């Protein structure tokens, strides 16, 4: 579930919605199929990153600790 990421986005210390905004800016710049690891320790990120993936039809791979993994689907 935690595939080696192609890129890491460090959002530690940032409050929501900032980690989700950073994810939304970065993911479309990566190739389709690429995996982005978002480091975010705001508890809301664990809820909002999967929700964003659902709303934007991107693939949420999972969370371990403060690392959230997203794969660009389109």
């Amino acid at each position, binding site marked *: 579930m935690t595939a080696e990421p192609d890129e890491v986005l460090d959002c530690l210390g940032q*409050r*929501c*919605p900032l980690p*989700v*905004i950073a994810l*939304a*800016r970065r993911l479309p710049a990566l190739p389709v199929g690429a995996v982005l690891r978002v480091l975010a320790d*705001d*508890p*809301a990120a*664990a*809820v*909002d990153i*999967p*929700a*964003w993936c659902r*709303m934007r039809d991107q693939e949420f791979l999972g969370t371990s600790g403060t690392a959230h993994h997203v794969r660009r689907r389109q």
Partner: protein
Amino acid sequence: MIPSSVYLDAATAAPLHPVARQALLAALDDGWADPDRLYTSARRARQLLDAAREAAAQTLGVRPDELSFTSSGTTAAHSAVLGGLRGRRRAGAVLVHSAIEHSAVLHAAQQHTAGGGTAVEVPVDRLGRLDLDAWSTAVTGSGVALAALIAASHEVGTVQPVEAAAAVCADAGVPLYVDAAQMVGRMPVPPGWSVLTASARKWGGPPGVGLLVVRKGTRWESPWPADERESGRTPGTVNLPAVVAAAASLRAAAADAAAEAARLTPLVDRIRSRVAAEVPDVEVVGDPERRLPHLVTFSCLYVDGEALLHALDRRGFAVSSGSSCTSSTLRPSHVLEAMGVLSHGNVRVSLHAGSTEADVERFLAELPGIVADLRAEAGVVGL
């Protein structure tokens, strides 16, 4: 120019019902004495308290001696959970509760687990509906002393399958506690529960009055130090004028409940559909069908919940939010978390007897621009 104010947070506290105001003022003159004393003014206070209990019990369809007044809805919820567990401690120390209970119930559950007890949380689906299979598994487990289910979510409005959940409890011999704070005075509470609580300020009664109902035959033991008042269920002198006002307004609210629900349900439908259509990237959450008549919640992508609350307040709209930045703990709402829906940029709108179609229209007219401005300020347009 400061815009006229539109209060849209009835789920926290509805504006005082006119009947409550009238009863409160009368009872301040007539009901200040201690109902437990034996002189004339005390007997008058006792009559007022008895009449208030009769009225509230009749409205809820319970016996007067099953109903106690508490000093708040929170205290009632604490008493329900801790007293229900204490009364059944020989059966076990497991509390089963849904993942979307009110924080008052969860805090009581935390005290229970801190003291060595166990709490089992039952999940909900994306619409905030209880997972009945998981509920059944949890309730029929060993050592379950009490099960707690909120009648309808105070955050997203989803009405829970109380009757089905109660049937599972009855089969397992486990008493069911129902937190009916958002339902009492607005719609009939489904049957089958053993303990029920409510809060007067939710139906237009004054703040500082809760209801605790313990049905006959339920094993319930007060978790508080001994006190004879309110059948030994809740310590301290009741705020009698507020209790009188609470009971009078409950009766009035319940009498109007069906008409109010018929008036507010389409207004909430309008908010649900217009917000979804006219605000880009918004998630309207909760069950669109089986829901409270007066409450709707939505989350706006990329918007800071606190900033949205303040921007709405500057335009005269009072709403609440489940976003983490608006909570003292900086955690997102556990309800939104349990549902797996967007938690930031969250707004809860809840209507009351004074809410008009014009209020709703003005809110709907202004909201898209307010959200667009916040997104433009944050530089997130087009993401």
